[in-house]
């Protein structure tokens, strides 16, 4: 466990250092986030229903933030494999006795922490600029969000497994972001079978918190069970598929190929 902590720490430092080194890219990302939040906070007055401005603002922003984090989790692991294979460092990472899947886990945790801080600071900044403050139960939204993340992590591992074998999967990753957008915006009441899809239950619960003011006690045991089981299922499935892909790549000698 302590080794995992040092692994996460090392990857957090590396990601932070690279953010500083590639500063034009980082600054562009920060400015982009700031203006997107600002546009959402101000623009919703123009396009939204005046009766439900507060709800609309909260719903759109929280949904956007969730979509962004889910997209990051889903795509990042695949991109890590691609970039490391391109750089020539992939096999070096595979030489770690902690295993590549733990390094990938550490990378994604590092990215979530860094993006979490950036997004939170920018959100507060843009709220201060716009004079519009979001008020919602973060104590309810955050745990639901964190549990949903685990399921998406599983999808991320599946894609990383695909990347180890096929390498060129950028197009797949691009297509998946639109599928993810669909999953994020279709309510469960419209398509109940989507409860088996990753992420959907989590977003649906967040939607209930944001729009209907749900708290912990308003969700049933069934809601929590569905959320946890769904996430656990996709996480385990993702890691298993990833480990199997790793084995296939090692059998076929595909690790260093790009």
């Amino acid at each position, binding site marked *: 466990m*302590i*080794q*995992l902590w*040092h*692994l996460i*720490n*090392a*990857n957090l*430092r*590396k990601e932070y*250092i*690279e953010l500083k*080194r*590639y500063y034009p890219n980082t600054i562009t990302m920060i400015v982009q986030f700031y203006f997107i939040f600002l546009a959402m906070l101000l623009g919703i007055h123009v396009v939204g229903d005046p009766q439900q401005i507060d709800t609309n603002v909260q719903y759109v922003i929280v949904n956007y933030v969730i979509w962004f984090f889910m997209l990051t989790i889903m795509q990042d692991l695949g991109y890590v494999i691609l970039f490391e294979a391109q*750089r*020539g*460092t992939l*096999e*070096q*990472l*595979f*030489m*770690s*006795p*902690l*295993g590549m899947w733990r*390094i990938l886990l550490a990378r994604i945790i590092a990215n979530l922490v860094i993006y979490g801080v950036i997004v939170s600071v920018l959100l507060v900044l843009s709220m201060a600029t716009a004079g519009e403050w979001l008020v919602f139960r973060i104590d309810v939204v955050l745990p639901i969000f964190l549990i949903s993340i685990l399921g998406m992590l599983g999808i991320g591992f599946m894609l990383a497994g695909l990347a180890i074998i096929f390498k060129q999967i950028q197009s797949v990753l691009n297509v998946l972001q639109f599928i993810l957008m669909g999953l994020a915006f279709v309510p469960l009441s419209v398509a109940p079978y989507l409860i088996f899809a990753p992420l959907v239950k989590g977003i649906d619960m967040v939607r209930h918190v944001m729009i209907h003011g749900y708290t912990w006690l308003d969700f049933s045991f069934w809601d929590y069970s569905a959320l946890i089981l769904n996430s656990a299922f996709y996480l385990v499935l993702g890691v298993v598929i990833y480990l199997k892909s790793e*084995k296939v790549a*090692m*059998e*076929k*000698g595909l*690790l*260093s190929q790009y």
Partner: protein
Amino acid sequence: MEKIIQVKDLSKTYKKKKTKEIVKAVDSVSFDVYRGEILGLLGPNGAGKTTTIKSICGLLVPNGGSVHINGYDSNKQRLKALNYISAVLEGNRNIYWRLTVRENLEYFAGNRGVNRRHIQDKIDELLAFFDLKKKETELVSSLSRGMQQKLAIAVALLADTDVLLLDEPTLGLDVETSYEVRDLLKKIVEQQGKTIIISSHDMPVVQDVCDRTVIINGGKVVADEKVEDLIKLFDTRAYSFTIEGQLSEKQTRLIQNHFPIFDVQDNQVQITVEKENDLYTMMDILKSDQTKIEKIDRTTVDFEQVFMQLIQKEGQDDPAVASH
């Protein structure tokens, strides 16, 4: 001496993408690596060297046979085995060019679950050992290739494993840096008691640094000897005859038939003798046309010639050379 790596009957086949033809990359390769030695793993391109190296590192799953590192199967107990081996597989591409020298060392140590704070002294030690102290805050992209190569080796050493595997450690280095790297490798073994496996095409490096070599050709081990023994073996059996005039056609044909490895240049005839009587046979061939022998020298061979002779000999013995 204690065996730290045991490669036993290692076999690996690949299926060619287009033709679906099955190709044997390595075929029942077996050898041991002893603690504290520097072993040279040699072979021409496509001989099966890389397949062997990657199987040792647990990056490739073999079809048959096994590799044990300190008793752990590098395939079935991969992560445990990796506690005892580190490698530099792609030279200066094995490190992050947008991180500084020290950041690279800290990152890769962290990737093995080591606390960054606990290894600062060790990092300082390595920076001093590799003469990189002055460059510790510089980005790797700004370093010379030689320095990048040294850093890649330092990263592998920081893992503090028993075995260090280096694939082409002097590739692309200038002569001076190549000598520097050779000295560093010898010091690593002397001072830290590490076991090093070097895969290289650079024969002077192998001759200078390695205690023993395993030569692979066509996916099979064709030699597993101490470097000095291999040289001695060829050295004592290679003779140069200086004759008066030139060889007749009959003599050339007879030499060709008797000596698979020979060379004729003007009045110089070089042969490699395999049996005791071969030297007398050569003399008889020369005597047959009354050719006067002016001088007989035992020729000096370097490791490169030994390697070439072994590879050529193996090619003649077994024309079915596997490729990868």
